[in-house]
């Protein structure tokens, strides 16, 4: 089995104007999805990421702070899953809860080097 990372790109939740009720409902969908993957035994790891962003870039190691709300496609979190191939992960990604908020799942295979 190969491992793949699903990277979640989307709007900062605080800018999309959801009510507490809608947030709770959305969270229920995240739970259900996590649960489904865990039961299928494919979930390896994963976390949600806080919206504060600090970047270090360039030869001068320039440090910049950016608020999540300024970034159009903020990385909100990731899951690593075990699967046969990309197509199988596309199948898993069908249940990602944030498509209605124009969210995106980027699927990347985790590279493995032979010893």
């Amino acid at each position: 089995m190969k491992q793949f990372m699903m990277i979640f790109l989307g709007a900062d939740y605080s800018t999309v104007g959801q009510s507490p009720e809608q947030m709770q409902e959305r969270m229920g969908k995240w739970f259900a999805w996590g649960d489904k993957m865990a039961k299928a035994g494919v979930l390896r790891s994963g976390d949600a990421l806080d919206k504060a962003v600090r970047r270090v870039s360039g030869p001068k190691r320039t440090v910049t702070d950016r608020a999540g709300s300024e970034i159009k496609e903020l990385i909100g979190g990731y899951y690593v899953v075990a699967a046969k191939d990309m197509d199988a992960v596309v199948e898993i990604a069908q249940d990602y809860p944030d498509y209605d908020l124009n969210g995106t799942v980027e699927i990347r295979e985790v590279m493995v080097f032979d010893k």
Partner: protein
Amino acid sequence: MPNAPNNADQTQLIDHLFRHQFGKMVSILTRIFGLAHLETIEDAVQDTFIKAMGAWRNGIPENPEAWLTQAAKNRTIDLFRQLKSEKERAPYFESGPAAIAINELFLDREIADSQLRMIFTACHPALDPRDQIAFALKTISGFSQSEIASALLTKEESVKKRLSRARNMIRDAQLAFAIPQGNELSDRLPRVLEVLYLIFNEGFHSGQKEMLVRKELCAEAMRLCKMLVDHKEVCSPNVQALFALMCFQAARLDSKVNELQEVIDLRQQDRSLWHFPLIVLGNQMMFMAVNTEEMSVYHYEAAIASEHLKASTFEATDWDRILMWYERLQVVAPSPFNSLNMAVVHIQRNDLEAAKLVLDSVVPEDLEQRAYLYHGCMAEYHRNRKDKAEALAAIEQAIQLVTNEHERSYLLLKKEKITAMR
């Protein structure tokens, strides 16, 4: 390996946890920072849910509510720093050790107290009645603008206007965030009950197609009313009577509409769908509520509702007793709607002369956009007199005036029946 939620219980949160938590936290923080900071506070509370959505992805904490409360406390301290650095006044912190004071406000009893303060703020007489409803739903019940708009069958834009008008009014008038005491309490309480009853009726009588939305409005009104019942100083026989009335009405909610979302009148309702536990609760409440010399509108309306619930079939309805309650209601709160109801009762009792007398006393224009009710009742009167032509003319007028789709189809059905008369 993440601690993915593997226990079925852990993947379920209590219904409306976030919504109710929102109301609690906004009320507590408002007590700490003052009404002037309401918008900042609402955003801050919203933030704690966003945090929870990320942090709980791999498993719900053992006590989600405590987690959220702690997050709100932390936000409070952040906010305090932020507001202090803006050199803003944070009244609560001017006296006493702040940390201890904050902790005390998060105790259950104080939470209830804070929420009651918010209810009295929302229902302050300085606010326009329609703004009061929108503001209460937003601030105490955590509805979003679009949820309020759909619940009240209005545009989101107008909800936005109402909310900002209410906020401005509260800020400009520098309303105290407090539960009124003594005489002021008895002056202000009636309006609070009125607003809660309006919210309830928005759910109970609404033309809203979604039963879920209607139930939520009724449930919110009942939750807020229960808070008044549970507060020693605020609770009064009138508060209990309103709560009893809401229980009695809510017990019938499921039977009011069929699967096709059509309105079903009392005669056709499936009485086995009436929710018995609510009737019991209403009876208990009513038992306490009658412990007074002066009966209110809510007492009489609850008495009428309970007469209907007592009848095992429509035919078994005790119309004489209902008429008696309506007559008493008419003494404490005369209204043309009440007159119409009395006319309906007279028709049920086959006393057409009395019905006519009452109907003649009603000026349809006084009923404003609900004047169709008058013509509907007229149609019923003429139908019982076997005067088909007059009945048809009246129902036609009712259909022309009605705006609510549900009511329209109900009237159209009635017209068919009249047309079928011989």
